[in-house]
């Protein structure tokens, strides 16, 4: 098993957000987390990455056989987890290229400059990223869509064992969603896994999703296969929210 989350509880500003998450992800699987606003979807991604504002009060996270519950953010990244942000930060003074190079050097021992350069160029084309983006300051002055594509580029370059995509499709037009979905296709293989947090099903149409989890009020209340996403698309979350309340 690649990722195992056992009974995870977190608090932020004295408020409990995650109230006992259990989640198992194997290599080669694509998991989707859906749920109404405020259910704790982004918190789950942040908590996996030991975000300083989310304190884990209970439970543990095992990744690739190792307990990473209390590791620092950068150490977790180095174990092979990646997260695409809902709102990627703009960082002045470092180009996308140099940033990828720097990030890569943290996990890979050797980087061949020319190889990396070719690879980035190739991926930039595949993802229809604007020419010259690699030498611009990281995300600075980029549109929402450009930032998301930059995230997918980083995912491809850093090639993690587990990629978490936090609402990567939100705010994107149909064409951009297609590109993100293409990027997911390029990344996904039997040796890695993905955890996709999303609101909509558009992104999922061309992705071989294995499991869909419904997160309501800090708990996974229902798990199904890819068809569950379509059901949500038609009927919304109300059924699950009511069930969660009654439970």
């Amino acid at each position, binding site marked *: 098993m690649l990722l195992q989350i056992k009974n995870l509880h977190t608090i932020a500003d004295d408020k409990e957000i995650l109230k006992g998450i259990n989640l198992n992800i194997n290599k080669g699987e694509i998991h989707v987390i859906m749920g109404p606003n405020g259910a704790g979807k982004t918190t789950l991604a942040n908590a996996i990455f030991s975000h300083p504002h989310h304190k884990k009060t209970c439970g543990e996270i095992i990744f690739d056989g190792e307990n990473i519950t209390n590791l*620092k953010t*950068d150490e977790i990244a180095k174990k092979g987890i990646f997260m695409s942000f809902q709102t990627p*930060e703009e*960082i*002045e003074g470092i180009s996308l290229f140099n940033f990828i190079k*720097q990030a890569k050097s943290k996990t890979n021992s050797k980087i061949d400059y020319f190889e990396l350069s070719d690879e980035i160029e190739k991926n930039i084309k595949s993802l229809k990223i604007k020419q010259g983006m690699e030498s611009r300051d990281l995300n600075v002055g980029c549109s929402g869509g450009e930032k998301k594509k930059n995230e997918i580029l980083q995912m491809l370059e850093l090639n993690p064992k587990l990629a978490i995509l936090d609402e990567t499709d939100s705010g994107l037009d149909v064409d951009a969603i297609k590109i993100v979905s293409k990027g997911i296709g390029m990344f996904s293989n039997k040796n890695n896994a993905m955890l996709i947090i999303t609101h909509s099903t558009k992104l999922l149409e061309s992705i071989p999703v294995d499991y869909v989890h419904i997160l309501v009020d800090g708990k996974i209340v229902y798990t199904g296969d890819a068809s569950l996403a379509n059901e949500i698309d038609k009927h919304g979350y109300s059924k699950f929210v009511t069930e969660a309340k009654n439970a």
Partner: protein
Amino acid sequence: MPKTQIKDLNTNIYNFKNKDEYAYKIKNGLTKDIVCEISQKKNEPKWMLDIRLKALETYEKLSLPTWGPDLSELKMDEIATYVKPKTNMKDNWDDVPENIKDTFEKLGIPKSEREYLAGVGAQYDSEVVYHSMKKDLLEQGVIYTSMEEAIEKYPEIVKEYFSKCVPLTEHKFIALHYAVWSGGSFVYVPKNVKLEMPLQSYFRLNSPESGQFEHTLIIVEDNSSLHFIEGCSAPKYNKVNLHAGCVELFVKENAYLRYSTVENWSKNMLNLNTKKAICEKNAQIDWVSGSFGSKISMLYPMSILKGENSKTEYTGISFAGAGQNLDTGFKVVHLAKNTSSVVNAKSLSKNGGICTYRALVKVTPNATGSKCSVNCDGLMLDDKSRSDTLPVNDIQTNDVEFSHEAKVGKISEKSIFYLMTRGLSEDDAKATIVRGFANPVSKELPLEYAVEMNRLINLELEGAIG
């Protein structure tokens, strides 16, 4: 997230001390006798002594500024205002005495001269010990020498310009400066001469409990251009040292002057410096300023846009660590039509350091069609530090494009987290953010200084190396 400690700027590389050797050190304090003695030692014309004495009188009348950092620890009775090094001015490094030459070798000055400078001046304590310039510039009529030699050799030019840009009555410390000034560079670029490579003057204060009061006077005539670089440093002593220099710049029609300063005074230095430029028609003065050292700095370069279409740009960064109070800024006065000013000021404060951006923009009624854009950013690296912005905008005409943006904030935790999810340590993440913040300024600095600044930031934000 545990807080990382970021060390103070590592100025140790500047902190080597030579023995306090001198040909002559005037007794501490500030009296008429002392002022007369300095003048006499310099064998000056009477008009200069008159300026000194008038300045001393003014100094005594003026009171300390009622704003800004506390200067009460400055005791003029304990400061020697004139320290003559054991050499006179040379034009060949080989002739400079060994220990002084070593000092400038360590600071990389002769190497820079060989590599990319058109000329170099070096001041040690109160006097200029070395001045040299490429021959072809000499042939084109460019003058680059010490102020003392300029008074001797080019008295008419000096007399015409000296104290005409910065009057001695402007504030207490400029009055002090005029009373005891010594050393500094004089540059005269005749009409239609464009210097491809910069001139650089380096000021080193070695003597404890002393002051440096160099006077730099630059005249760039019509259609000419110059890049002048000024560097300063000193070893650290327990008692305060004082720097009250003065820079007067005259930029004539269609002329261009770029004035770059990298100040790395030791942290016992009170740096009370005055710099001003007067720009004629179509002229441009650009300031690039890096303030890293000193205990207290009060430094507000000023551009007077006197001629139509004249321009100025100010790009500056201050970095205040523990015990430092850097009060810096920029002043501009738009006097003529279609003048323009662009200000990009940054400050970094950490470990209790205080950075204040204090600025003036004045647009007079005549300055119609002028443009002015001010942007200042303060970044605080921890909760102990301070960053303030105190702008004064005095706009006296409606026909002006004016914009002012000020941002003061703490280093973004979101950005740190984002970078850390890519495997950067917390220190690396902070260093990346700080470098990025400083980048718009460091890229304007002369290359060696830009490299130096990035190196300092890397070192200081500990663990940030590779």
